């Protein structure tokens, strides 16, 4: 039964000012429409260009559920290609990443393609003479994703021709990327340390929403962060606070801490928590780092860069970055009730190793399938995914600190416990879901 396909009004009706219908989380049909419309209409994160440093290097990923490749072309530029042979549809690469040399070769019939996707050669080419092959879709090679943008190393792509251009889509929100990158004395990041992959039996939007949900840490994480605080209290006086305690304990900060830290709202579903301070504010200084930053930028600018403590910046639709610890989480949709979470870490080029060490410790203590903090969150998402099937109430409430004049406002900083960011994400969801419909 289809209720929503081609029916923009029905889709819009799923999102009200202060609540959203459960079908945005549980309906497989809505999920398919997200894959057909919302993701192709949006600028979606593909990967970082440090993952493909040399000509021929490739990295396979997805936009929504569509398989794509990030590849370094022979001319040094990065390309984004649909990872599908134009002949029979075979996925071209066998590994997630590697080097293909000067060309891709399909493992099925040996059709080959330059690293910009164009057709290089077909075996037994004579068999296509006088068949009109030149006019076929297959003759154009591996289809490139036409709209791509490499923003200071971070590569985004948009599949559909319509929609907003890159600057219009992201606007002022790019300042969070700038701050994360500027934390390197040479203004450069590199993917480092490996990627943590965590399978979630829940809808991808639950994860995105949770990035700006500041009313849950002290409740859901009482078991993990609360235990850290309790165990740490028993340490002998004068014991140096371990890095692990510095990382986990702030999750137990009181409501006032999160109210006062503030949330910023930008256009198109983007925004960040931690306008004034955040759970990353009180980390110990890393020896030698500030001196390097001062030498590179001057003291005033170095202080301004490091003084930003943005907690989670959400880039709609499906990534979050943490500038102060150089971490990016990618929420990859698989089905209405299944999401792959990838947590990527970055090294600040020309900065002390201890910064990467802290980033990796944060990643494994918070984002790993073996992380007790991650267990707290996933338990809640999976309970919600089940509970939403109750017919007692078909609506999810997002009303906290709602204001009737909030729609259309942008670049405003509001109370850190507001659910405005989630309402704002759903306004963007409706916009890109029904765009061109």
């Amino acid at each position: 039964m289809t209720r929503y396909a081609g029916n923009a009004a029905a889709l819009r009706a799923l999102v009200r000012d202060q609540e959203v219908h459960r079908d945005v989380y549980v309906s497989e049909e809505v999920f398919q429409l997200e894959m057909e419309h919302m993701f192709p209409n949006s600028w979606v994160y593909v990967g970082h260009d440090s993952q493909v440093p040399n000509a021929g290097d490739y990295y396979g990923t997805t936009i929504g559920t569509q398989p794509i490749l990030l590849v370094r072309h022979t001319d040094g530029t990065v390309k984004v290609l649909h990872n599908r042979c134009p002949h029979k549809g075979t996925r071209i690469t066998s590994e997630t990443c590697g080097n293909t040399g000067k060309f891709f070769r399909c493992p099925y019939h040996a059709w080959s393609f330059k690293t910009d996707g164009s057709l290089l050669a077909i075996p037994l080419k004579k068999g296509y003479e006088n068949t009109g092959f030149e006019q076929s879709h297959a003759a154009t090679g591996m289809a490139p994703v036409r709209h791509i943008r490499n923003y200071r190393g971070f590569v985004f792509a948009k599949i559909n021709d319509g929609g907003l251009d890159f600057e219009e889509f992201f606007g002022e929100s790019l300042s969070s990327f700038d701050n994360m990158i500027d934390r390197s004395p040479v203004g450069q990041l590199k993917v480092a340390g490996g990627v943590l992959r965590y399978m979630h039996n829940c809808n991808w939007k639950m994860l995105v929403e949770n990035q700006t949900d500041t009313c849950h840490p002290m409740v859901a994480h009482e078991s993990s962060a609360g235990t850290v605080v309790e165990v740490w209290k028993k340490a002998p006086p004068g014991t140096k606070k371990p890095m692990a305690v510095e990382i986990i304990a702030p999750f137990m900060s009181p409501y006032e801490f999160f109210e006062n830290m503030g949330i910023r709202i930008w256009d198109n579903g983007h925004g960040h928590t931690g306008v004034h301070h955040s759970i990353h504010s009180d980390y110990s200084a890393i020896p030698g780092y500030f001196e390097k930053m001062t030498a590179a930028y001057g003291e005033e600018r170095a202080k301004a860069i490091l003084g930003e403590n943005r907690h989670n910046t959400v880039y709609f639709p499906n990534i979050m970055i943490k500038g102060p610890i150089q971490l990016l989480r990618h929420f990859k949709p698989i089905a209405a009730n299944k999401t792959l979470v990838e947590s990527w870490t970055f090294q600040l080029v020309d900065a002390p190793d201890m910064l990467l060490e802290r980033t990796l410790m944060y990643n494994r203590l918070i984002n790993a399938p073996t992380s007790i903090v991650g267990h707290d969150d996933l338990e809640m998402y999976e309970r919600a995914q089940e509970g939403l099937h109750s017919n007692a109430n078909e609506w999810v409430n997002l009303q906290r600190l709602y204001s009737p004049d909030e729609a259309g406002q942008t670049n405003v900083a509001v109370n850190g416990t507001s659910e405005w960011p989630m309402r704002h994400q759903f306004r963007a969801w409706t916009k890109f879901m029904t765009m061109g419909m």
Partner: protein
Amino acid sequence: MTMVAEAPLKNAVPTDQELIDFVVREARLIDQQRFDEWLDLYADDAFYWMPLEWNQTDPRLTCSLMYEDKLLLSIRVERLKGARTFSQKPKSRCHHVLQTPQVDSRDAAANSYVTWTPMHYVETRLEEQTLYAAWATHHLSVENGKLKIKLKRVDLINCDAAFGNIQLFM
């Protein structure tokens, strides 16, 4: 009769059989959820390491699934007892099947003994039961007449797969 967690060694230098018995006992303590006794098997400066990468050599600048000192391990054990540990309501259970541990190296002068144990580990909660295959490497030493774990390394055969929650200890 209940198994004793920490059996005193008969002599200053452990026999191969005593090393093997120790590794088997450690797994049994986890399966029986005797986590406080289990934690006592670890030296104060011990680490529990579960690599994220195949043949990983660096726990510091390469991410791991777990790389935890005794403080973090004790936090996990405390958390499992918590009244508001929602991801453990109901609790997970687990089951180890070990091959006979092999003594890879013994150096009495350095007080260092290493065993290697292929194993299957099953973790279950609610309707889900998940099987993991792994190799456990134990670095052991003798402290006050008892064996202690200095490092336990668990290499999952599919260490780089996307997992759901892994809640207990392998």
